[in-house]
């Protein structure tokens, strides 16, 4: 190569490098030194328990990454908004973060119904959204190119995993199933039926109830009359407490398995049921890798204490869903790393689509696929007698897959 050619090649390389930099800098929220991420969760109002400490957990993970040098030399800069667990506020927060703050991607949403409301806007604006701990099945199916979520667990996986546990661990041939007659209930029942079919069709006796139900005599009596081997409950906390109480009153002594939907405050659940004898044969579903406070999760709680010493000293903190905030932040960081030194939204979305890693926080791996936008589909089960918890070995995975 003569000198002229060498100059030409060097110039071409410079042009290429410059154009790549320019391309990266055309992406919103990216500078040479920073990546701006929009984070949102319910930080006030009645839904605060679902997201306040979840967002804190995500923040502490991003802070750790920044402390270790950032992502490909760039520091992560967070813009935080309060979505109040409300669809209007959440959509307003998403619009503000995208249009005014011009963030590179969004990482937020702890309440499913609220986050589902943002789907249309996200798709129109083509901005990547990695949810925090919302299940958000309504935004995940049919799969969207721009939306990833269910880092705690999807509602579909809640139902599938429950049936797997009932059949595999409790050896149930006949399964009683009480769900809600809303979208949540429909989703978990769909996967429960699919899982049952795959397991050789154990009989599923379903009673669907309204979340506002005041008298649960009818569903519980019908379940008892059907004489199933186990009762699976995927209701919210209030109906769950009413059903466990009624089951005890009616002399039901077979296993009851309560989905994660109803376990946010176990102490309150026991108080609401009002009788510890009702918990003689109760299992609860959890989506973490270990018992709350178990050795596998010690690092998470220690990290929280170090990051937020004042908050950790207050009663009620960390909130029970706190660890759920770490896997979504890990996924965002992994995707940014995979997108390379010149990240674009397109590259990040490609990285997310094939992502698989073990967070060390959740019951199963974080895994996406071309038709699967739900990160986590396994659960652990804990025998709960009203005071003590005993972990059932292993994790139980839902096998339901979205079919077009």
């Amino acid at each position, binding site marked *: 190569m003569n000198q002229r050619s060498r100059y030409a090649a060097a110039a071409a390389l410079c042009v290429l490098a410059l154009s790549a930099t320019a391309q990266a800098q055309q992406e919103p929220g990216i500078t040479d030194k920073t990546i701006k991420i929009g984070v949102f969760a319910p930080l006030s109002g009645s839904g605060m328990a679902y997201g306040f400490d979840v967002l804190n957990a995500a923040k502490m993970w991003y802070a750790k990454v920044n402390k270790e040098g950032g992502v490909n030399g760039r520091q992560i800069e967070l813009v935080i908004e309060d979505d109040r667990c409300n669809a209007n506020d959440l959509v307003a927060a998403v619009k503000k973060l995208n249009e005014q703050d011009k963030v590179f991607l969004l990482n937020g949403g702890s309440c499913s119904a609220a986050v589902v409301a943002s789907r249309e806007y996200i798709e129109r604006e083509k901005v990547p959204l990695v949810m925090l701990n919302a299940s958000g099945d309504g935004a995940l199916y049919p799969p969207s190119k721009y939306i990833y979520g269910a880092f705690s667990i999807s509602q579909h996986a809640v139902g599938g995993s429950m049936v797997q546990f009932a059949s595999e661990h409790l050896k149930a041939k006949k399964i009683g199933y009480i769900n809600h007659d809303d979208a949540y209930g429909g989703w978990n029942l769909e996967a429960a039926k699919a899982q049952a079919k795959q397991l050789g069709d154990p009989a599923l006796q379903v009673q669907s109830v309204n979340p*506002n139900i005041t008298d649960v005599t*009818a569903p519980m009596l019908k379940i008892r009359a059907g004489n199933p081997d186990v009762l699976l409950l995927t209701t919210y906390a209030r109906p769950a407490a009413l059903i466990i109480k009624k089951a005890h009153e009616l002399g039901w002594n077979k296993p009851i398995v309560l989905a994660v939907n109803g376990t946010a405050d176990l102490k309150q659940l026991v108080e609401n049921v009002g009788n510890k004898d009702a918990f003689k044969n109760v299992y609860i579903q959890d989506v973490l890798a270990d018992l709350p406070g178990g050795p596998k999760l010690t690092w998470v709680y220690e990290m929280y204490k170090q990051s937020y010493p004042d908050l950790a000293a207050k009663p009620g903190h960390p909130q029970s869903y706190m660890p759920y905030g770490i896997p979504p932040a890990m996924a965002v960081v992994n995707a940014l790393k995979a997108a390379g030194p010149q990240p674009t939204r397109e590259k990040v979305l490609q990285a997310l689509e094939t992502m698989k890693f073990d967070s060390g926080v959740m019951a199963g791996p974080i895994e996406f696929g071309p038709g699967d936008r739900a990160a986590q589909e396994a659960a652990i089960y804990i025998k709960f007698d009203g005071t003590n918890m005993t972990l059932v070995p292993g994790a139980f995975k839902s096998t339901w897959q979205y079919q077009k």
Partner: protein
Amino acid sequence: MSFADTWLFLQQGVLSGLVTGSVYALLAVAVVIIFKTTDVPNFAQGEIFMVGGYIALFLILVMGWPYLAVIPVTLVGVAVLSGLFQRVVMERVIASKGVGVQMVIATLGLAYALKGLVRTSGLGDTPRSLPPLASTDAVIIGDAVLTRLDLLIFAVAVTVMLLLFGMFTYTRVGRAMRAVGMNPKAARLTGVNLTRIRMMVWALSGLISAVAALLITPKILITPDIGHIAILAYAAAIVGGITSLPGAVVGGFVIGIAENLVGLFISTNAIVVAPFVAIMVVLLLRPQGLLGGKLQVKKV
């Protein structure tokens, strides 16, 4: 379904329905007495009931008071709250020649204000229960299973209804309330103080709601949204005849039993629809309600 199951469902459905129905009946009476005397459907009835539960909860959980003190303070507190609302807000709307819709909006405003207040109290973040007034040990009646608490709820609700019947029939103030309900102008001409009677009616309605809250919240749990139970009270009042006190009682029992029988013999999905189906059937077959008397033509 076997005959044994059918018989069991029938017994359990009716008995459990009588228990919850007795509370719907109390709330329906609270709705009807306000409607009869002021021509206003009180859309804050459910929230007044809810506040009764939260006042009791606050006194027990935060103040650590025993039930013996909690019950009278809750009853008086809710009665005073309701009476004051009538005296301070509703009377001003009446005095400024406000029409019905303005008064209805005022009750809706009260509903939202009460719900907001409870949400900010810190107690409304999760479903909670009041300690039961009686044990929840099972009591077998026929093939059906109730609890001691169920029996207490039913007994107290029926006793309160009998006391109300006695008050409306035999006391001067009760008769004055009925007179205001029948013809306020004539009642005023005979010396009845309309403002005072209306305030007393609202206070009484609040008191009945507080009784209902103390009875049923240990059984159904309490959240800031539990006021939706008032829809069942409205259903009971319409089924019984919106201006009839005995009708409200009958309507409450009908709704309570219908919920259970529909859930047991048709589908549990249909439980929430049952009260509205009952309303439609009654409005089609007997628009004035089961005990609403003859249809009347009103001069306008």
